[in-house]
């Protein structure tokens, strides 16, 4: 009996602290922790997030695409189960490193361990890995792609890739119209296809279905980033700038106007600049901007008012201050005194009222120890006592002028002398 009790005790109290990766929390609940609702929530959200990232990778598993080295870095993946980063450094195909990682044995092991440790459900392990069969298929497709790419090498690798993309995308689920010109884009600056003021509004319905454009296309080349961009655009609405072409072009784009009209930003990931245009209306040009040296809009016309609060934060109108303070409980102790005092202080600060020298004998409202009755009475009582004491002191002093002591004999002698003398 005792042994069992001891065991139970030791389980609860002496459980060692363990770190839960999912909740990012140290706990000593042992295996029970997995069944706590907070843990379950955290786990489901974690797995859902990772699942969405994996879905991108799985897209490329089905349809491998060639990718430019400079765009490949966007496809890096953080593997939650292995706690490692899977960068796409030398990959020729989109997400190839990620695919390789997910198909590996060690990753599968770690997924199983993770699920067992944190209670994710062992039936879902296969969702987070890539089976050997799929991996083999993917490799075959990659090889065939490579072969084709090698065959059609004529102008330059970039151009071919663009062409490749064109044909592939036509077949792929995303119906993207690649600009023919894009295939001829070398790695340097290219003339604009459209004026910088033009905008191609993308209604959300269009975005949600597939990324189809009505004008010059947005991001193009990197097939790898394309899907992510599509996903990104699916999540964002608003204006997409046409001038976000790849390469250095996009880097030169600048934002015009200010955000006063509140148009939404959407990032166009052409692998370069994530900025969107805000509609620059002619109004802005007239009013001026930072570059022309015009004052900022919040200072226009409200200059005077805005400066004061900065300097005198407390000396606002009594009305506004009262409104602000009304949040304080009006039934709080000394509320009336506080309000009155605040008004007085403010007036003093403004200089309207000179410091009123309150009575030197002022005493705060104090409830005395051995006292019954209200506090005002205690003050009065004290003052009475005080006066009595003072009077007493004065009285005593008046009565007794201080004199040196003369003994009776001395006094007798003195009188005797005077009598004798006279």
């Amino acid at each position: 009996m005792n042994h069992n009790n001891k065991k139970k005790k030791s389980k609860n109290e002496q459980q060692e602290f363990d770190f839960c990766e999912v909740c990012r929390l140290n706990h000593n609940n042992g295996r029970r922790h997995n069944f706590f609702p907070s843990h379950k929530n955290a786990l489901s959200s974690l797995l859902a997030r990772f699942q969405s990232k994996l879905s991108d990778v799985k897209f490329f598993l089905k349809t491998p695409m060639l990718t430019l080295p400079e765009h490949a870095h966007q496809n890096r993946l953080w593997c939650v189960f292995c706690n490692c980063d899977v960068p796409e450094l030398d990959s020729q195909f989109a997400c190839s490193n990620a695919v390789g990682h997910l198909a590996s044995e060690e990753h599968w092991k770690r997924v199983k361990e993770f699920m067992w440790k944190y209670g994710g459900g062992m039936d879902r392990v296969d969702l987070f890995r890539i089976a050997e069969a799929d991996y083999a298929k993917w490799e075959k497709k990659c090889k065939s792609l490579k072969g084709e790419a090698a065959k059609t090498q004529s102008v330059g690798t970039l151009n071919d890739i663009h062409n490749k993309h064109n044909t592939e995308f036509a077949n792929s689920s995303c119906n993207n119209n690649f600009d023919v010109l894009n295939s001829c884009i070398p790695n340097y600056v290219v003339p604009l296809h459209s004026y910088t003021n033009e905008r191609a509004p993308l209604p959300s319905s269009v975005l949600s279905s597939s990324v189809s454009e009505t004008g010059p296309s947005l991001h193009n080349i990197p097939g790898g980033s394309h899907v992510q961009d599509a996903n990104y655009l699916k999540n964002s609405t608003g204006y997409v700038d046409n001038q976000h072409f790849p390469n250095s072009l996009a880097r030169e784009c600048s934002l015009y106007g200010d955000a006063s009209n509140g148009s939404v930003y959407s990032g166009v990931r052409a692998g370069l600049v994530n900025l969107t245009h805000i509609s620059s209306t002619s109004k802005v040009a007239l009013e001026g901007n930072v570059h022309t040296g015009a004052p900022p809009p919040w200072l226009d016309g409200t200059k005077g008012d805005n400066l004061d609060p900065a300097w005198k934060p407390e000396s606002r109108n009594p009305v506004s201050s009262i409104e602000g303070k009304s949040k304080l409980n009006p039934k709080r102790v000394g509320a009336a005194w506080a309000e009155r005092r605040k008004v007085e202080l403010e007036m003093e600060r403004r200089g309207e009222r000179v410091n009123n020298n309150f009575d030197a004998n002022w005493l705060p409202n104090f409830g005395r120890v051995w006292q019954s009755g209200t506090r005002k009475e205690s003050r009065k009582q004290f003052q009475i006592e005080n006066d009595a004491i003072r009077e007493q002191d004065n009285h005593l002093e008046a009565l007794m002028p201080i004199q040196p002591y003369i003994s009776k004999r001395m006094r007798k002698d003195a009188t005797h002398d005077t009598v004798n003398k006279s």
Partner: protein
Amino acid sequence: MEYLLPTLRKKQEVDSLIRDTLDKVLVLRFGLSSDAVCLQLDDVLYKSAKDVSKFATVALADAAAEEIQVYLKYFDITYVPSIVFFFNAHHMKMDSGSADHTKWVGTFHKKQDFVDVVEAIYRAAMKGKLIVNCPLPPERIPKFQLLYKDV
């Protein structure tokens, strides 16, 4: 400790401080700078002053000063250190198990005790109560004997 917390030696200073501390608890300690217990309390006060600064102000009044004597009489302060609490120029009482609810006599065992006491006072004051129960357990409250008129 005078250089760390505002120390008051004149009645007018004390008055103006009481009158001008609005919507914050005023912790007014009466003590002597030569007393060991006072110094320990001052240390606690100084260290916690910043933590409670949003809802309390701490000040020290020198019990040896001339002008402060009237306050010592008014507040019936015989033991030092004593802390009197004010809120909006009203005196706040606290029932800490002793006979004297009007002030806190003695020091605090921990900074947290002090903060708890001030918080209790603040909460009560905000609700409109002039007297509040002490949140500390009796073993952490310093004990003393109350004299009545020098008896």
